[in-house]
């Protein structure tokens, strides 16, 4: 009987373990709250950015519709909705002639598409953040998809959406 009592006695080691467990639990809760508060602040602005999809088939143009949602290939997160698309432009490329000079030429079978995308986000000192955590700026290359079509694009301009 005495043996059982001494085995079950609460000691300093048990106390340390309980303190560590409580500290970890509090840490996780606080971290969760911080993440929530960041997420709340993340969507205070509407970011509007212009993208260019280069060198795609003409048929693809009809599969890009205003209102379609864009998803990142990297993590499947939403990166906005198509607000508008411009008329397709013939893809241009640069070739060198026999004398070595470089000129611009058109590829009649391929098109570039310029679209405006809207996405909730935040504007900070560091720049624009889609959904509060994904940095976006001109020059960035992104692999994306809509429900209909997959493509890569380059961001050409980023700003806050106008009030209208």
């Amino acid at each position, binding site marked *: 009987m*005495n*043996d059982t009592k*001494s085995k079950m006695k609460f000691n300093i*080691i048990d106390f*340390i*373990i309980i303190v560590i467990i409580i500290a970890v639990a509090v840490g996780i809760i606080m971290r969760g709250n911080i993440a929530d508060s960041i997420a709340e602040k993340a969507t205070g602005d509407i970011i509007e950015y212009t993208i260019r999809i280069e060198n795609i088939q003409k048929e693809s143009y009809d599969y890009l519709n205003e209102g379609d949602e864009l998803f990142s290939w990297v993590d499947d997160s939403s990166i906005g909705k198509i607000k508008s698309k411009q008329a397709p432009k013939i893809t241009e490329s*640069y070739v*060198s002639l*026999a*004398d*070595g*000079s*470089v*000129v*611009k030429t058109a590829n009649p079978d391929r098109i570039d598409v310029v679209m405006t995308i809207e996405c909730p986000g935040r504007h900070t*000192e*560091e*720049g624009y953040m889609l959904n509060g955590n994904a*940095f*976006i*700026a*001109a*020059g*960035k290359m992104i692999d994306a998809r809509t429900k209909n079509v997959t493509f890569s694009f380059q*961001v*050409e*301009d*980023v700003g806050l959406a106008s009030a209208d």
Partner: protein
Amino acid sequence: MSEKIKQKKKYRFNFVDFFIILVIVAVLLVAGYFTVFNKSSVSSDKVDIEYVIELKTIKDIFVDKIQEGNEVIETVRSENIGTVVDIAVETAKTTTQNAATGQLQEVSYPEELKDIRITIRKEVSVDDGIYMMNGVELHVGSHINFRVPNYVGSGYCVQITEVKEAAK
């Protein structure tokens, strides 16, 4: 005799003790690592440098996205790698071959493509003869992925110059 056995049982080394010792050793190792790490970084030399990143064949619509005074962030490690102090823009060039003569020659692209040289200033440490910027190594030839508030890009470091006191 039975009292001795009881005492022995009381102080028997068990899994919990092992776990606690493991945690303590891990904490000591981590603390030791950071102490040694900090010492080595404290003992390294600090110098101001200006280095140049060259961006090739960039569309001209991006030229004004990079501004003097922009803080530059390396995007792989998310570390600050300096402040833009100068931007030089010229029509992009490439090397092609003249089919008639076989000669390689430098020619210009059409005007809308630019080569941009960004000069960045940063105080760096010199560890074992290597310029280090917050853990990012810098050499002429290093490929650097970076961002400033309005532009994301990458280019090669093509020049590094130590800045003397008088020039600061």
